[in-house]
């Protein structure tokens, strides 16, 4: 049952863009992570309708998430009475666009359901629900699953030598599939050496790489630029989407901080406070 504001159930359902319930909200927060062999999904539910929560506590209803991927024909239903759940899937189970549809679904018949928040257009109740009826629904969430999307954002950057640059200057090129950070031969050798040291890598992340990510985001925000088909643009756009970041909604520096998972925290821990590794 896809989310559609023009779709009406024959009974009250707590859902966005509907006043079946005058107050109350149901929201699911979904996060995907990828490691070597596994796709991990973490789901959290927030439900503010006490009467529906009580039915879950009584064992009459449960939180349900339907995860589906057209590219791999994968479909899985994850049910739980708990507000948080994690599940692992094989790395090959999902690829490309993945949809997550969250619900609260009736498990055992509910014979006398009353909630003062239910819109009077439904009558005063009590309401009856049978197994499989939907008590609450959140909008579908779309994610993009690709190994590259779960690597650090800097994985789409290449450090390259540019002969005509002086040692103190560096430039960034956006014409290739990976963003090219261009430095002089001497500077490239110095940076390559620095990348082998964790603390120095943290400094690089907060200087050259931060500025380059910020410029990449600024370019993607520019309506006059077109980076269609470039791998770096796809990775940044989809990583932002998966993290719930709207590129139009914030300044480039702020988006860069979120995409790079607040790199100043690493600077604080490893350089300012000097944590030993």
């Amino acid at each position, binding site marked *: 049952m896809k989310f559609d504001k*023009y*779709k*009406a*159930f*024959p009974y009250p359902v707590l859902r966005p*863009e*509907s*006043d079946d319930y005058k107050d109350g909200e149901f929201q699911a927060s979904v996060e995907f992570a990828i490691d070597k062999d596994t796709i991990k999904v973490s789901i959290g539910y927030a439900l503010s309708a006490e009467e529906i929560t009580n039915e879950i506590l009584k064992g009459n209803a449960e939180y349900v998430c339907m995860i589906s991927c057209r590219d791999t024909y994968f479909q899985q239903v994850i049910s739980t009475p708990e507000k948080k759940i994690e599940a692992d899937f094989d790395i090959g189970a999902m690829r490309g666009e993945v949809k997550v549809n969250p619900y609260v679904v009736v498990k055992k018949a509910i014979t006398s359901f009353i909630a003062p928040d239910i819109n009077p257009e*439904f009558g005063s109740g009590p309401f009856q629900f049978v197994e499989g009826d939907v008590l609450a629904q959140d909008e579908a969430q779309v994610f993009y699953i690709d190994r590259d999307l779960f690597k650090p954002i800097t994985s789409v950057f290449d450090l390259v030598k540019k002969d005509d640059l002086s040692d103190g200057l560096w430039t960034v090129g956006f014409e290739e599939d990976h963003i090219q950070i261009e430095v002089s031969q001497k500077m490239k050798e110095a940076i390559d050496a620095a990348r082998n040291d964790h603390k120095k890598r943290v400094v690089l992340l907060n200087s050259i790489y931060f500025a380059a990510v910020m410029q990449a985001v600024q370019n993607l925000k520019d309506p006059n630029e077109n980076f269609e088909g470039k791998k770096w643009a796809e990775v940044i756009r989809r990583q932002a989407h998966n993290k719930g970041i709207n590129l139009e909604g914030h300044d480039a520096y702020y988006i860069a901080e979120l995409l790079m998972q607040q790199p100043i925290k690493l600077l604080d821990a490893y350089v300012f406070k000097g944590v030993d590794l």
Partner: protein
Amino acid sequence: MVDINNVRAILTGAKTRKIAFTPVTSGKIVLHVKEAGADSDYDVAIIKTGLGVLGKGGVVLDVQAGTRINVDIELNQEFFGALKVVAHEI
């Protein structure tokens, strides 16, 4: 398709529903209902209406933006599931 808000299709009998919605714009519309399936929606014929007139394959109504509409309808078949309610400008 014209925008309508807070759509309801409350079961009042095996073949009857109370349809309620709030139009976003004013004017003459035709209201259609469909059986809401998992992937596709299927047309259902309305054979009786308590408001407006049957025509254009649905119920023809004059609506005012922001004014709640309640209309009792009868379908040509028994149906107990979710309905998709759509409105088109005439």
